């Protein structure tokens, strides 16, 4: 157990790619937590997808021992957090487990949208904030300008901001000292009943469910019988440990400490993040406040390309769900695609991550249908239906009106791209709420419909601003609008997996864009194929994919028979990546690509 005064708990937060994980590397290395030969870049990003994409998806906790300049030994618990807006939930709950934050700002870029969002979370969590200006090794680094921005835009004192290069290690010692001197020690009572925060939990194939805890009061020991206060379940603690960053078993955790326990818990579902853990026998009186559960906001259907793989898909989805409480799933049947799952995600990146993992770790090729948000459908009889799938849109004669989710989007952008950003937001039915300046950068706040943002808004934003804009959003509630279901007919048959909800005023434009895209995405067939967009029975856009005319081997004699057969087999394998709708083969990527708007 560690003396409370010698503990510092903090999260590392920043806009995406500003260097959180690299800074964590240096802190781990400088304190000798991991031997030099075992070091690698972004050590904590251990998932394949994290390493491939170079981003953090899951928050990671590490315990570091640090001998400070004052001669004392400290225990530092750092939590490296993800920067992408889809995983904002990970950041905010991590912050609840610690007393301070290192706010990393890339000194070549300055304050970005998630920098702001994270500061608000940190302030909400009553954190001490230590600003860290990173990447000072780069020629484009401009610490003075960025410090000024921090003061102007965020309104926190940046005179003590530490100048760091997480790459070269410059400023790392100063960072460690600032952690010890500027951040508060945790508080807590040693002899009070156990009160621990369930910060996170995940499934490990060897140890079962691993529960990350922060002890507020009391002591948690190996062998204890604990109670999860929300569901009342009782467990027997069989292991206690800390991450360094690999697991190290210890015997007890005291107030202010962060570590993990295992207790033969089979499913992540049996643990609720934000729950309070106490002793079965001598429980604490009041539980901690708990977290707001994370809500999936984007829904889409996942279907196996090969319908025989449905059971494998079920298995894969259930296993992934074990580990990711923010991902929801239920069975879905589609007229065209057969059996699959309708899944809910925190955002498009989250969707892509899950989809990639199913395809790669479980080797199942997937068709992903058009992503949708949740609409509220108010029926004539006064009831309300949540619509997760446009294919389920009820008969309009029973519908009174529709409401759609709206968000508040904050965008930071250099002045010269402001015009393009405003146009983009306007095109996406946005309502401007605020426009302020910080130096040469504008900060715009827009009220936007989530369905206009979910899909490709971020890509578009990046492309119209050459990557210089940053973006963050929050859900703000539902509002009524004139929304309709747009169906796509391929060869005169509706393809339910391509149905989308659109605003009536934008329907023609969207319809035209979709049928044009589909015309490029669907390969030519032996016959011509009409592709239409329709609202109810009314066709609003139409394209015709002309017929293929030549596909034959000119010369084929005895000797070519074997070769020719191989060629046909290859063609057949290519066709496996497509699904048949009536007589038309649609490639698996078409369902998503058809929705991408070029303007």
């Amino acid at each position, binding site marked *: 157990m560690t003396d409370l005064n010698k503990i510092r708990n903090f999260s590392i937060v920043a806009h995406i790619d500003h260097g959180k994980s690299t800074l964590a590397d240096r802190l781990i290395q400088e304190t000798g937590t991991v031997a030099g030969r075992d070091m690698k870049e972004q050590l904590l990003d251990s998932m394949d997808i994290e390493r491939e994409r170079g981003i953090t998806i899951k928050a990671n906790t590490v315990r570091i021992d640090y001998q400070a300049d004052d001669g004392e030994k400290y225990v530092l618990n750092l939590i490296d957090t993800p920067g992408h807006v889809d995983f904002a939930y990970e950041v905010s709950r991590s912050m609840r487990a610690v007393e301070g934050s290192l706010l990393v700002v890339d000194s070549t870029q300055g304050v970005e949208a998630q920098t702001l969002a994270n500061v608000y979370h940190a302030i909400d969590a009553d954190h001490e904030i230590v600003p860290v200006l990173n990447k000072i090794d780069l020629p484009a680094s401009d610490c003075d300008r960025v410090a000024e921005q921090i003061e102007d835009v965020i309104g926190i004192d940046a005179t003590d901001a530490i100048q760091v290069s997480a790459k070269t290690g410059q400023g790392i010692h100063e960072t460690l000292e600032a952690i010890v001197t500027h951040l508060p020690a945790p508080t807590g009572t040693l002899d009070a009943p156990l009160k621990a925060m369930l910060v996170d939990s995940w499934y490990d194939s060897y140890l079962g469910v691993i529960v990350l805890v922060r002890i507020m009061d009391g002591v948690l020991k190996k062998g204890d019988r604990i109670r999860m206060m929300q569901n009342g379940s009782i467990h027997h603690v069989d292991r206690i440990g800390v991450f360094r960053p690999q697991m190290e078993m210890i015997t007890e955790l005291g107030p202010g400490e962060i570590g993990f326990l295992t207790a033969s818990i089979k499913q992540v579902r049996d643990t609720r993040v934000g729950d309070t853990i106490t002793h079965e026998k001598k429980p604490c009186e009041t539980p901690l406040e708990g977290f707001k559960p994370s809500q999936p906001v984007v829904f889409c259907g996942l279907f196996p390309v090969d319908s025989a793989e449905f059971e494998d898909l079920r298995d894969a989805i259930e296993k992934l769900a074990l580990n990711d409480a923010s991902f929801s799933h239920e069975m879905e049947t589609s007229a065209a695609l057969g059996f699959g799952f309708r899944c809910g995600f925190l955002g498009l990146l989250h969707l892509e991550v899950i989809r990639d993992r199913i395809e790669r770790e479980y080797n199942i090729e997937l068709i992903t249908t058009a992503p949708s948000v949740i609409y509220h459908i108010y029926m004539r009889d006064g009831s309300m239906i949540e619509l997760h799938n446009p294919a389920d849109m009820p008969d309009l004669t029973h519908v009174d009106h529709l409401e759609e989710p709206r968000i508040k989007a904050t965008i930071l952008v250099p002045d010269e791209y402001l015009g393009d950003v405003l146009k983009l937001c306007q095109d996406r039915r946005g309502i401007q709420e605020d426009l302020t300046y910080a130096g040469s950068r504008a900060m715009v706040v827009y009220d936007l419909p989530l369905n206009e943002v979910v899909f490709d808004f971020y890509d578009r934003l990046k492309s119209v601003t050459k990557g210089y804009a940053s973006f963050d959003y929050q859900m703000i509630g539902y509002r009524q609008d004139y929304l309709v279901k747009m169906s796509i007919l391929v060869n005169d048959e509706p393809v339910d997996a391509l149905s989308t909800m659109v605003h009536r005023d934008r329907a023609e434009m969207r319809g035209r864009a979709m049928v044009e895209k589909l015309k490029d995405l669907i390969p030519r067939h*032996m016959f011509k194929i009409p592709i239409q967009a329709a609202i109810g029975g009314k066709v609003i856009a139409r394209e015709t994919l002309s017929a293929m005319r030549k596909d034959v081997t000119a010369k084929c004699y005895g000797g070519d028979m074997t070769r020719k057969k191989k060629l046909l087999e290859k063609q057949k394998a290519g066709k496996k990546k497509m699904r048949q709708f009536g007589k038309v083969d649609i490639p698996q990527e078409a369902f998503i690509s058809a929705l991408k708007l070029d303007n």
Partner: protein
Amino acid sequence: MPSPNWSRAVLPDDWQQGGFGLYLHWPFCQAKCPYCDFNSHVAQHIDQTRWLNAYLAEIDRYAAQTRGRILTSVFFGGGTPSLMDPDVVAAIIARIKSHWPTANDFEITLEANPTSVEAGRFSGYAQAGVSRVSMGIQSLNNRDLQKLGRRHTVEEAYKAFDIARNHFDRVSFDLIYARQDQTLPEWKRELTQALDLAIDHLSLYQLTIEQGTAFGDRYAIGKLRGLPADSLAADMYDATQDICGAAGLSAYEVSNHAKDGAESRHNLIYWRYGDFIGIGPGAHGRLTQNGIRYATDTVHNPAIWLAQAEEHGGELSRTAIDPVDQAGEYLMMGLRLSEGIDTDRYAALAGEGLDPQSLQHLQDIGMIEALGRRIQTTPKGRLLLNAVLETLLAG
């Protein structure tokens, strides 16, 4: 108790519906054409006696396995078989005739390049027993012959053709169209000229860019310009059907035209999915033994094949073909022919008939026609044969 022979008489081996031929591959050419991916090589010195002996040894080996069968045809293909010594060709034909009884309409074809050198050997081939010559004229204009890397002129080709006519009853020739920078009117004109020359058989191939050829390499780096788009190529194909049809030489196969009865017997064996022996480097065969149909193949490299054929035999492998795969091969080959396939024969091999829904769909969109026990591709369907096959073989 019926004898095995009796049961075979009632239920003939499938190959008998296609005939039995012998293909002999001569792998040498004077020069390599830039579009050609056949197993053809340019060699400094060719010991024709060694090659003859190797061919004879192979012929003897296969004869021992197919005693009593009636031989429908022999095909000397290449490469450029018209570089073979007429004596070598004569000895081969004599050996073949000593082993197998031959059909009434027995046919021996030899592929020839249309140059004066080769024309000089035509009388020798005729004496050796060659009954049919197929000449690679390729184009009737010198500009395009040059682009195709051919070593002869149109005038030479006409002369060679004339000489061939004097020696053989049956002379056919090949043209390659849908060439670089070719227009539809140009092709129509050229084809009309070709029909003036043609006797009763003509092969008209659309230029295919094959990987691993000089054209293929140029194409891969975007340097082979002026190739017709698929739609123009399709227009050329359609025009070819019309013009040849009007001249009485309608298509009996995707790229082959003939007057009734003038079809290449040998090539019909392939398309009717009969049995054929393949001798020579890179030659393939289909051979039924004790009710099992095998695919045979050989070493590609001429020198290695020669050494192996001399020593123990040039066959590289012999693989049994599953009846379902045989059905696929039959379909693939048979639908190239305008006569189409016999659905009962297909079903006997496949164990089940073709999917009625796919058939109906292909009929609805005008790709095939069903006539009693036969299904046939329409001219439109023939030009889309790969897609048609994909539909029929899907699942």
